[in-house]
């Protein structure tokens, strides 16, 4: 090949690399934003974007020139002090030191003057706040009441905290929802596997009239919208006394997961080598033995794939949980908790929302990254045939 083509190739490779980097960044950014925000302080979240989170944030504060501290000097009443010592700021300036970037005397203009400038106020009073936070307020008359307000803008160091997680898990009952989600998910993942495995074996390796129709039926049921089942099945559950309960949601998830389970497992089992099964039959093994001793172990990748699928699906489900579980705090799963409770009650509390979302997606992400291999294999067994 000529150099020209090689050069073109290299250019193309670079272009491809750049394109993929762009795509990956685009795909990752929202999640990174969530993760970063979940660790930020709530005041800083609303003051600067998460992409600026490593930088200090300028926030406005208020303090008071306490009238109790006033002293008379040559006919003027003077209050001196340090704005960072005001107890309102204790959370931000635990050392009672900081850097003032601007100050003001009115709430509408909290950053009217640069530090060090002597501001002329109404009634002949003057105020100066220095960069280190020391201030001097002078008034021609004795100060009455609690003393005048000072406003200042100061640089706050970037704060990362786990406070949002504490709030979400301890105060907002998310721990309860987490356990509920787990409670819904595990039985709803384990049970359909067994039921489906036997059915899939029958559809793959047993010969009986109507097999083709049944397979077509399963393929058809893959598509039936869940919505159709909601009203009739909830009525059915109420009728048989299951009502809205964990038992009800396990039954529902099991049934809703079955078509995919049967379909995936059958597709996989059909591909198993015929001669192993034939020779086992010749050796006198029954179908039950063939199934438990040969098919099940060999189908492990497909079983794992479906298990991951069903786990993700039930963990992430909102619709079935909304309908088949009662809406009370003690049986809410995380998705319902976030959508119906936190988005409502913590709608503007970005840090809390981010932490809650991250708590809910952490387990699926771990499962996803540790078992991705099986998931991909399962997807391929199901789709590329």
């Amino acid at each position, binding site marked *: 090949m000529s150099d020209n083509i090689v050069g073109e190739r290299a250019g193309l490779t670079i272009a491809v690399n750049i394109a993929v980097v762009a795509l990956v960044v685009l795909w990752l950014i929202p999640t990174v934003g969530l993760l970063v925000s979940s660790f930020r302080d709530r005041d800083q979240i609303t003051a600067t974007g998460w992409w600026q989170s490593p930088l200090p944030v300028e926030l406005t*504060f208020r303090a008071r020139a306490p009238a109790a501290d006033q002293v008379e000097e040559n006919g003027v009443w003077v209050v001196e002090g340090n704005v960072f010592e005001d107890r309102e700021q204790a959370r931000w300036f635990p050392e009672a030191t900081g850097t003032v970037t601007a100050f003001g005397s009115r709430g509408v203009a*909290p950053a009217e003057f640069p530090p060090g400038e002597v501001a002329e106020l109404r009634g002949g009073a003057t105020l100066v706040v220095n960069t280190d936070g020391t201030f001097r307020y002078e008034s021609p008359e004795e100060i009455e009441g609690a003393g005048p*307000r000072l406003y200042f803008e100061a640089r706050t160091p970037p704060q990362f905290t786990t406070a949002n997680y504490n709030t979400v898990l301890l105060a907002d009952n998310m721990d309860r929802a987490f356990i509920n989600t787990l409670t819904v998910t595990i039985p709803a993942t384990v049970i359909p596997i067994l039921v489906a495995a036997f059915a899939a074996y029958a559809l793959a390796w047993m010969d009986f009239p109507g097999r083709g129709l049944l397979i077509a039926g399963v393929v058809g049921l893959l598509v039936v919208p869940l919505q159709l089942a909601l009203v009739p099945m909830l009525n059915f559950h109420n009728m048989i006394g299951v009502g809205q309960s964990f038992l009800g949601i396990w039954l529902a998830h099991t049934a809703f997961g079955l078509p995919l389970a049967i379909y995936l497992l059958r597709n996989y089992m059909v591909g198993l080598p015929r001669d192993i099964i034939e020779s086992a039959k010749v050796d006198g093994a029954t179908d039950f033995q063939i199934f438990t001793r040969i098919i099940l172990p060999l189908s492990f990748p497909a079983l794992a794939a479906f298990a991951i699928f069903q786990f993700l699906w039930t963990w992430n489900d909102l619709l079935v949980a909304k309908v088949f579980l009662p809406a009370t705090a003690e049986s809410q799963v995380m998705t319902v908790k976030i959508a119906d*409770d936190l988005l409502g*009650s913590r*709608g503007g509390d970005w840090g809390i929302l981010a932490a809650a979302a991250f708590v809910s997606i952490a387990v699926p992400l771990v499962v996803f990254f540790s078992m991705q291999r099986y998931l991909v294999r399962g997807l391929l067994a199901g789709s590329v045939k």
Partner: protein
Amino acid sequence: MIRFLFASTAGVALGIGSAVAQPLPFEPGEEDRFNWQSHEEFAEQHDLTGQTLTITGPWTGLDAQNVTQVLAYFAEATGATVNYSGSDSFEQDIVIAAQAGSPPNLAVFPQPGLAQDMAARGFLTPLDAETADWLRENYAAGESWVELASFEGPEGEEALYGFFYKVDVKSLVWYSPEQFEEAGYDIPETMEELKELTEMIVEDGGTPWCIGLGSGAATGWPATDWVEDMMLRLHEPELYDQWVENELPFDSPEVVEAIEAFGWFVRNDDFVQGGSAAAATTDFRDAPSGLFTFPPACYMHKQASFIPTFFPEGSEYGFDWDFFYFPAYEEKDLGQPVLGAGTLFSVTDDSEAARVFIDWLKTPIAHEVWMALSGFLTPHQNVNPEAFDDESLRAMNDILLDATTFRFDASDLMPGEIGAGAFWTGMVDYVIGADAETVASQIQTRWDAMR
């Protein structure tokens, strides 16, 4: 008050069922802010020793703790044993219990609609005419309270079925006294003044209102409170009642006028922080935060009495926040209407103790004890306001006592599909630019479809 808000916080402590045999929080005879005389007189007149009184209600968590403490005084005065149990699913539970023939003696209904249903089905025992007269005389806006709790019984005859106890006020505007003082604004006494103030703030370069309708799947409900308050300020309360029952159609000119009166505030980008479009999505719990920033993002916020829970930590009543009555039009002469919500006691299984209990609710001490605990307002005019431990509650209660009309939150009384559905989404559509008449007629269509 929109009830689902509290389901989440109250859910922590469920089904507190406790026999009331616990120490009294305030020793009878001590602290003269309490009317101990009423306690002692009641104790002399009634003796229920050996009788048991069962009560179920929607109060859980802190409210349940409070009510058991309050009920302890009834137990102490009469010698009866009182059992209160609260549950988040009270509204389902009480129907099931009544149908199964095992209701408690008394039930506490979170809103009149369910009590009305149960009265019609014969599950409630009417209260006597004396009680109705007592309410008219001793409750502020007494007639309103009697009307709200009077329903048709199984034979269609109307009677008083409920005794309102513990109410909430919605007609409140929250503001920062410091910022008002700095800017030299006065508290508006009339709707006309409120509108002037709104315009004045804009002229001064500020933003008068913070409005947030966002509430996840319930987005839009704060707007229903606005429209209800406007309805009470523009028209006779009878019209309001007809609106709730849909005898006055949703798309009638009176209702459209109320929606547009709300629109005067919200549909003006200069009046609302971030503009109207932002109001539609700003979370209602996030909305008041604008009062507390420097410079203030807004000067006023209209919301019910629960909102201080969502104020920034450490903010103080009187300095950082205060509230005033959402005023009425001077020109309309409709008095001082107050929109709110409240719980009512009804007799579900008649007994001597149940009757005596209803009489006990008329004593000042039955109100004052809870006033001294937390989160309790009462229209009872003969209680000592000093009993309030919390100054802001006292000021709020004054608004309730000054009321000439009290009406229950209409969206809570309307069928769920309207009051917790079409009304909400309709208001969102309106705020972002739809026509008031179009929105109103859509809601009416939805209501028609339910017949």
